């Protein structure tokens, strides 16, 4: 698609419509800790220092553009642990959850994968492509604590809950789930810390480049009973850690990266001496900092946001997510990414510094993917199975939010369902609304059938987000998906294909998973 748009000149100019989605950053929140003290002077000092540091990064190559420097900085921050040492989870899955076997199975892979997955993975690590992603960590470290906020792993983990429950759960000493939903992972946790939902706390909607607005979500009602704002849950835990550390005279803590953390006075350190504890003040400070970083107009504040509901962005700030749009936001124009490249002729942040589709990395050459090509879906799920299962977001809730809410359940079938073509259903004797079993090589789930001629014959569609406990036996779509990672996702050390947290890294690609559908007897 991107190639087609590129070849037809359909990007980087007004009126072309199609573009990719990216979540941008609202730096006011992201850099709250780094700026150190309240007030916008602190924010401006932080941004000046950051700009200076970034200029230093261009010392060896003055031709680097703002975009390139930003990416380089993100990568260095990852290396230095500035982003809390995120680890691409694929390595955890591979070393500890039992995915190794699946990913090595040639039946599950594209025929152009010439060697075993093991060989590719080991080579990628030996060549240092994932050093900053700490790929090797999970060879040695066994996770002991699972602390998730809004994650719901047992629903989302492609490849299924079985692997997690069989291989990870027995090692865990404590499982904590922070969520506003009573979800399946919560049912397998030691502690559930109930968090306030939207409208029960102050927040802002996702900073999406599609609408270019800071949208305030104000608190409309108090959270019920013992439910807390997630910030207050975090601070409550920090307070407790501080208290227990003092009681045990454990003043310092060394993390797995060898970094020492002082456990004294951490509540004050993390809250700017209490300044951030107040929700309204925290939001006001965030918005004012956003203005100081140039993302919002200079006079922005919580008051202004409350008055207007939404404030249009004026700039991208400092993080790569926004800057990657590579276009100047103009007050009365729609936004199209890449205009810096097409109109201002600024080089692209790629290996060749052009819009680059040709990747002459040896693995891509070996796979015949040096150019974008069409390939049939790999055999994951079981190559001989009749249907290909795809997914998508449901319409009635946002992602998996409110999936089990009574009102929303009443706006559809009220139970998990799978779309199947009318002719396919007829051939299998499946009635509309009937429970069926969907089977792949890695697992199966029960779900009801919904028959529609708008589904391509041979395809079945299951919206993501149904809670496992909505299905009989508690297995859902993810339990049928193998959770396959494509080996080319392990490529690094090549121009723009470098590990950066939240961006380029090996991820599962469960599209068109081969499944069978059977009537439940």
């Amino acid at each position: 698609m991107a190639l087609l748009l590129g070849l037809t000149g359909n990007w980087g100019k007004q009126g072309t419509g199609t573009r990719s989605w990216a979540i941008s950053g609202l730096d006011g929140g992201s850099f709250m800790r780094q700026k150190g003290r309240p007030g916008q002077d602190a924010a401006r000092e932080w941004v000046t220092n950051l700009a200076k540091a970034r200029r230093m990064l261009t010392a060896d190559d003055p031709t680097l553009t703002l975009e390139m420097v930003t990416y380089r900085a993100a990568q260095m921050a990852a290396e230095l642990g500035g982003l809390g040492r995120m680890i691409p989870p694929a390595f955890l899955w591979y070393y500890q959850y039992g995915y190794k076997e699946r990913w090595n199975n040639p039946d599950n892979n594209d025929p152009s994968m010439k060697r075993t997955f093991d060989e590719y993975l080991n080579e990628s690590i030996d060549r240092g492509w994932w050093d900053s992603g700490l790929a090797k960590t999970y060879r040695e470290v066994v996770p002991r604590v699972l602390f998730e906020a809004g994650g719901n792993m047992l629903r989302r983990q492609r490849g299924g809950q079985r692997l997690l429950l069989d291989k990870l759960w027995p090692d865990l000493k404590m499982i904590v789930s922070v969520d506003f939903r009573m979800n399946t992972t919560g049912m397998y946790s030691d502690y559930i810390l109930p968090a306030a939902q939207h409208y029960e706390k102050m927040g802002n909607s996702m900073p999406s480049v599609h609408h270019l607005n800071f949208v305030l979500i104000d608190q409309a009602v108090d959270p019920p009973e013992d439910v807390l704002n997630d910030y207050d849950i975090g601070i409550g835990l920090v307070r407790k850690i501080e208290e227990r550390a003092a009681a045990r005279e454990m003043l310092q803590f060394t993390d797995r990266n060898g970094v020492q953390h002082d456990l004294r006075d951490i509540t004050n350190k993390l809250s700017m001496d209490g300044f951030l504890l107040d929700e309204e003040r925290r939001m006001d400070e965030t918005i004012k900092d956003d203005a100081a970083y140039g993302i919002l107009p200079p006079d922005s504040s919580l008051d202004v946001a409350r008055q207007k509901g939404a404030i249009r962005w004026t700039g991208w700030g400092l993080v790569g997510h926004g800057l990657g749009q590579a276009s100047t936001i103009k007050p009365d124009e729609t936004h199209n990414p890449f205009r810096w490249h097409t109109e201002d002729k600024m080089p692209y942040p790629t290996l060749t510094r052009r819009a680059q589709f040709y990747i002459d990395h040896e693995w891509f050459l070996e796979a015949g993917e040096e150019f974008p090509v069409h390939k049939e879906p790999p055999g994951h799920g079981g190559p001989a199975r009749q249907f290909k299962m795809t997914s998508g977001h449901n319409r009635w809730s946002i992602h998996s939010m409110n999936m089990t809410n009574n009102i929303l359940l009443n706006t559809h079938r009220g139970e998990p369902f799978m779309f199947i073509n009318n002719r396919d259903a007829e051939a299998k004797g499946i009635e509309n609304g009937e429970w069926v079993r969907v089977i792949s090589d890695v697992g199966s789930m029960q779900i009801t059938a919904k028959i529609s001629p708008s589904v391509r014959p041979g395809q079945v569609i299951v919206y993501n987000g149904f809670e496992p406990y909505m299905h009989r036996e508690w297995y859902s779509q993810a339990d049928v998906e193998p959770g396959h990672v494509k080996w080319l996702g392990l490529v690094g050390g090549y121009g723009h294909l470098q590990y950066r947290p939240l961006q380029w890294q090996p991820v599962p690609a469960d599209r068109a998973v081969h499944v069978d559908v059977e009537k439940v007897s």
Partner: protein
Amino acid sequence: MGTITQSKRQLAWVFDLNKCIGCQTCSVACKVLWQQDKGTEHMWWMTVNTQPGRGTPRDYETMGGGYKDGVATPGKLPSPEEFGGGWDYNYDEVLRSGKGRTAHLEKIAGSKTWGPNWDEDEGAGEFPNSYFFYLPRLCNHCTVPGCVEACPNNALSKDPENGLVLRNEDVCQGAQMCAQACPYKKIYFNPSLGISQHCIGCFPRIEQGVAPACVRQCPGRAAWIGFLDDDRGAVSKLVNKWKVALPLHAEWGTKPNVFYVPPLAPVPLNPDGTFNEGGERIPLSYLKSLFGEQVGGAVDTLKAEMDKRRRGEASEVMDILVMYKWEEALGGFDRDPAEIVWSTNGAG
């Protein structure tokens, strides 16, 4: 039998079926505002269904009611099973009983075979030439409301100022003659109160200058409200001037005041995958069965106006349908509901 007193003015709705994305925001907004009390579990005064489909209540189009040549036609009272829905779930059993994986979330109340949006996204045709669209429905606040005339207790009336069909719940005895007479089957029975209930057009909001929740909440910018005689308003222009918005089943004789901009669709594909330029994906005959003979003209006007815009010419119809500013949907009822102190005795 109740008598219909005509109102001075008439409020009307328009829904653009090309823009409705079936998101159910309107129906949820209505549900949350009006139907949260005991006895209303199964009620959805606002519904959005996939067409072609059996709708809600199931097969309501075959249930009769309304008028033929000015004479009231007998109608059927839909059963709770036909309305469907009203589901409640075994949350306690699943989440708190300790039964683990042996208990999954299941319906413990309401219909087993139908729901207010049971046949969502099913539609008709054969792949790849299948088709469907969404049809939002509420009480039509008809100019000849069969429900009003059928009521033995005179509980229903048209508001003299805006034509909304209102119910005096103190007078209603739950006879349900209204529900039989209404051909759109938009009247529900409240077993807890022993009365019938239906959409009142968010009358208390209208009184305060606030648009109904279904219109104000629509993220698709697919809904308008306004007075039919307000020549400068979007509703009047779409209905009266451009005639691109048509009533549903006008042949049922109640002169409904909810109007629909008919859906267009891409041309179908030939067996070899090429476009069948002259073909119809949504058969015109199907649209005629819903919106009458005039739908052909409405579709032609829409296509001609879209062509104008493609050529860079001005088009009032397209400008209205695009709805550049969402306040344009509100027909002047644009007061912010948040600024009003609402109280149960209606004082604002």
